[in-house]
């Protein structure tokens, strides 16, 4: 096990900074629905609550390791080095957006930063990630692919087919099942056989005879530890692993589904809105992964209150800029719609 000294102060503060940046970005997306109604269309999914899981996992990456998230995909490129303004501009449908306004929130892509692209169809990203690992294996690049997907996605055929394939081909990939307790409005206990039986979801790994482990997704260092092991295994040619990272999504699944011109906003989390379980939601919020890491770092003398504020203020200013940049960006002109149909 790596100690904080092994990781080093710089890296730890980098991790804290990335977590804060993701949270701040997502808060700005959410606020946009209130401050600029109509600017975000369609369906948008946020990563608040997932910060420790995302950053803990990505902190183990080599610079050229590919990352394949689901449609809940704002958090990863922020860590990979994509300019937040370009992500925001995409979510606002603008020409300076990461995908020039063609994709929107669910379909971000930034191949230049090793993020080939996200699918909005539940589970398909797992198969695509498997193919990205095939490229790495065939070309012998030494890369390991990070495949992120939800608990709900693990009930798709694509999940079972992909893990089996990756296992028999010993593909260099780590499957990170983000168990945020809900698939849309459905609690995990209603949709997952392992959960219904009181077992961890990592048990699914047994079906493919690959390592499977469950980790506290609110503990950034614990996530880092487990992912690092799986990455080392994959890089050594021993094949895939499944990591269940357990945390809690803090916002509702997505903004409310409305028919235009009825405005859309984020409703309350399903725990409250659908199931009336306010205590569950409040308990989850009380174990916020960012607050937890912050006080850990302060207690260990690795972060001062002033340094923490500087990081937080920096993220706020950066995301304020991202909003300003996105709002100022023009819309694509209509005829551009026929671009990019074929290569």
């Amino acid at each position, binding site marked *: 096990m790596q100690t904080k000294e092994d990781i080093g102060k710089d890296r730890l503060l980098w991790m804290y900074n990335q977590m804060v940046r993701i949270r701040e970005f997502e808060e700005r997306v959410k606020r946009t629905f209130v401050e600029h109604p109509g600017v*975000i*269309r*369609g*369906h948008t999914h946020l990563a608040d609550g997932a910060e420790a899981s995302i950053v803990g996992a990505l902190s183990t990456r080599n610079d050229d390791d590919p990352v394949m998230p689901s449609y809940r995909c704002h958090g990863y490129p922020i860590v990979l080095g994509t300019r937040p303004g370009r992500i925001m501009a*995409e979510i606002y*449908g*603008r020409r300076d*957006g990461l*995908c020039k*306004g*063609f*994709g*929107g929130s*669910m*379909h971000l892509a930034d191949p230049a930063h090793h993020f080939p692209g996200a*699918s*909005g*169809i*539940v*589970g*398909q990203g797992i198969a695509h990630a498997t193919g990205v690992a095939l490229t790495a294996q065939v070309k012998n690049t030494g890369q390991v692919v990070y495949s992120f997907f939800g608990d*709900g*996605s693990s*009930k*798709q*055929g*694509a999940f079972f087919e992909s893990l089996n394939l990756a296992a028999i081909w010993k593909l260099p990939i780590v499957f990170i099942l983000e168990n945020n307790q809900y*698939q*849309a*409005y*459905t*609690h995990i206990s*209603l*949709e*997952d056989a392992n959960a219904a039986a009181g077992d961890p979801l990592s048990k699914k790994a047994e079906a493919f005879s690959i390592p499977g482990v469950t980790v506290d997704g609110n503990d950034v260092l614990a996530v880092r530890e487990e992912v690092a092991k799986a990455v080392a295994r994959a890089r050594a040619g021993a094949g895939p692993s499944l990591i269940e990272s357990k945390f809690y999504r803090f916002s509702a699944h997505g903004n409310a589904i*409305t*028919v*235009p011109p*009825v405005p859309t906003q984020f409703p309350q989390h399903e725990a409250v809105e*659908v*199931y009336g379980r306010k205590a569950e939601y409040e308990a989850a919020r009380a174990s916020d992964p960012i607050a937890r890491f912050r006080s850990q770092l302060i207690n260990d003398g690795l972060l001062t209150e002033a340094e923490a504020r500087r990081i937080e203020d920096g993220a706020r200013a950066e995301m304020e800029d991202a909003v300003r940049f996105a709002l100022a960006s023009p*819309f*694509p*002109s*209509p*005829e*551009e*719609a*026929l671009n990019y*149909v074929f290569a």
Partner: protein
Amino acid sequence: MAREMMFAEAIAAAISEEMERDPNVVYYGQNMAMTERDPFLKKFGKNRVRITPISETAEMGAAVGAAMTGLRPIVELYMAEFMLVAFDEAINEAPRLRYMSGGQVKVPLVFKAGFGFAAGWAGQHSNCTYHAMMGIPGLKLAIPSTPADAKGLMTAAIRDDNPVVYLHHYMLTIDKGEVPDGDYIIPFGVADVKRSGTDVTIVATAWMVKKALAAADKLAEEGISAEVIDPRTLAPLDVDAILTSVNKTGRLVIVDQATRHASAAVVIAAEVAERGFQSLKAPVKLVTSLDATIPYSEPLESYVLPSEDKIVQAVKSVLIENAAAV
């Protein structure tokens, strides 16, 4: 008696009434019936109303098996594109099993799904896929445009002894209209004249009916009388009703939210070309989506979709003297 209802309420009313009538009707899907408060769960219980994981292959495949053995499942699939994950069940299983068994089994089920949500749902949630389900022997396809039709077609779908894909347009979800109470069935394969006219026939389905009617209003201001026909089911397709109208007007514009070669419009155009050629005073005109995946950004999305203006232009183009030469 009739009652004003929203489109989505009319569908729910049909399902509820049929579940009351026939204990073999079961209803399941993702993200429905989560709690005891759900009206269907309250009324019909956990045995017949179920929540499923995100497993379209199992959801649709299990419906096929259940239908072969005596149940009449309705599968709530939300977005028609999610069916693509398990398209085998819709195209190559449900409609073929009766035939391959030499008529021994039947597969009475409803795959219910929304489509066409032109509200920024972008590249994988708002394209149109129904063309692929037309012309599959053994498969029926309903695509209502009003709350009353939504109820009548859902009732017919549930009572039908064949697999039915029932597509409701998301942009119509909260539209209101008069819906007859009680048993109300619209037989499959019967088109409806949504507005009668004499100068041109406009054929449209679902949300496009609304746009065609709005275009017809505009055209009326200029003294052009358009007849708007909604086939209501694409399989079977009421070609006769379209031919009757074209025989009267001599001109045909077909509006379809799908891309041109993946549309119902091309099938309708071919039928009219073969059987109604003598009635035509001008070439048939298609108003479809442009050949692109639905883009996210609003100006791009509006550019590729059919619009009221595009319909008006198309009608004018078939009305001008010597349209054949244009």
